[in-house]
């Protein structure tokens, strides 16, 4: 069970470029996320949703405003090696692109790296036990730890990317388009695994995607972004049943085919 935490964004804004060519990727934004959050972020390409999640994990820095995790700003967390590693253990980020695996290292070696660096576990037996435990939780065959990244399917690689993040028992998990490239047959499996894991371990979840049904299933709260601005937010059910902003309505209408489909007998 993960400990409680609080992530607070106040007036966070991100600009790319300067002067006349400046582009505001994220308009000033306030947000609070805790271990109880299951927050979905939806929006079109360029709406700022990925920039937002990258700022939270410290891969980008806000132009103005502040991101505070457990009373310390992200900038401060990243300022020394020790606190940076501590922060990375607590806040984990999984991206769509699973090419982040070293092609020459087995998946087992890749998943063990964060255990060594972020948890300081060096005992081989303990590493093995933890790898087996996370494989069981994510319904992965531990025998696949011996394989290289290109020797497994895209869906399996995505699950190993999740294993690599979850093995360090973070308090907050950020998923950026983790199912967008997967077949519909695999999407359900990955979404079920994430939802189950987050609820069992009582972790905070931020789930960024452009595919709406995945987000409405996995989240309880929803943030709708357009051109760097949060146009609407609230409980998923409210936004699906009675969207207020025209853009949210457009998104919901685009997907709302359920009534026209025949359920399986």
């Amino acid at each position, binding site marked *: 069970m993960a400990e409680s935490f609080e992530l607070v964004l106040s007036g966070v804004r991100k600009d790319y470029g300067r002067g006349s060519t400046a582009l505001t990727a994220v308009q000033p934004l306030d947000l609070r996320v805790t271990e109880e959050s299951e927050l979905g972020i939806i*929006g*079109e390409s360029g709406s700022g949703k990925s920039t937002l999640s990258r700022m939270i994990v410290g891969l980008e820095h806000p132009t103005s405003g502040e991101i505070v995790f457990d009373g310390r700003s992200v900038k401060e967390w990243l300022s020394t090696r020790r606190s940076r590693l501590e922060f990375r253990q607590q806040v984990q980020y999984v991206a769509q692109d699973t090419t982040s695996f070293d092609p020459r290292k087995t998946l087992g070696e890749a998943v063990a790296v964060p255990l060594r660096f972020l948890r300081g576990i060096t005992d081989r037996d303990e590493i093995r036990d933890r790898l087996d435990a996370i494989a069981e939780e994510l319904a992965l065959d531990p025998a696949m730890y011996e394989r290289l990244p290109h020797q497994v399917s895209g869906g399996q690689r995505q699950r190993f990317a999740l294993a690599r993040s979850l093995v360090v028992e973070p308090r907050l998990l950020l998923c950026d388009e983790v199912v*967008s490239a997967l077949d519909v047959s695999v999407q359900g*499996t990955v979404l079920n695994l994430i939802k*189950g894991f987050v609820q069992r371990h009582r972790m905070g979840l931020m789930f960024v995607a452009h595919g*709406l049904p995945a987000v*409405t*299933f996995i989240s309880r709260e929803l943030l709708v972004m357009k051109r760097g601005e949060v146009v609407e937010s609230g409980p998923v059910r409210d936004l699906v049943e009675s969207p207020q902003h025209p853009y949210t309505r457009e998104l919901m209408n685009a997907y709302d085919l*359920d009534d026209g*489909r025949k359920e399986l007998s």
Partner: protein
Amino acid sequence: MSTATRPDEAIAVRDFSISYRVDGELVPAVSDVTFSLSRSERLAVVGESGSGKTTLATAIAGLLPHGVAHVEYADARIAGRDVDLRVGHRVIPISQLGVSMIFQDAMTSLDPVASIGHQFRTVLASGERRSRRDVRGEAAHWIDRVGIPRPERVLGLRPYELSGGMRQRVMIALAMCSKPAVLIADEPTSALDVAVSQRIMSLILELTAELGTAVIAITHDIDLAQRYLDRTLVLHQGIVQDFCATDGLSAPERSAYTRALVKCVPRLRDFDRTSLPTLAATMRGTGMGGA
């Protein structure tokens, strides 16, 4: 032996099979596919990764690499003409085959170093003598047609100077300017969000309806098929599971695999569910075994 040709037939293939040569042996990738489409008809080819859907599309477009693949069929007709789609046998250029193809990533199908105008010239002036001015005028017309402002200016630009959305539109214009009988779209909207995806699909459907072009969309997105395409061909491990009207995909007479695949599509109102149906679990539930 050819079967009778319908006057409005855009494409017809019978017993179409493709194998890949692996370590000297032929491994079947797609087996005995039979379908026909009339002009303006829209087909979705759906299936999981590795089901053979892209192989099928690439073979129909005559783009399979020589020496790697082997194609066999009883009949293959495009726009009423028998065509030779055997790998390495094709004698007519692709632009005259009557098939155009667009891809998920526009950057991979546009020449990165040639201007947009030059790329149009390659298609529009292939096989016939035409003045530069004439070709330029027609290219500008097509760029305007896909909704890009100031088309004359775009002709002088190279792909990297265009935004992602403009590249996608230029690719569609290039595919349609040869007025093909069949347009094959390989995962046309997988990388796009829903609003842009709607605009791109509307554009494709509008242009193809106008020219009487049949559409074959290769996709893993059943939602896309249900929204835009009349008929669906479901492939699983290279074998056709169903070929039917898209709105009948979950009918009881469909194969267990097709019905399971449709059931796995996440829905907007899944927020009360504790878990989503998965293909393996749904197949087990129907007594068909895991997929």
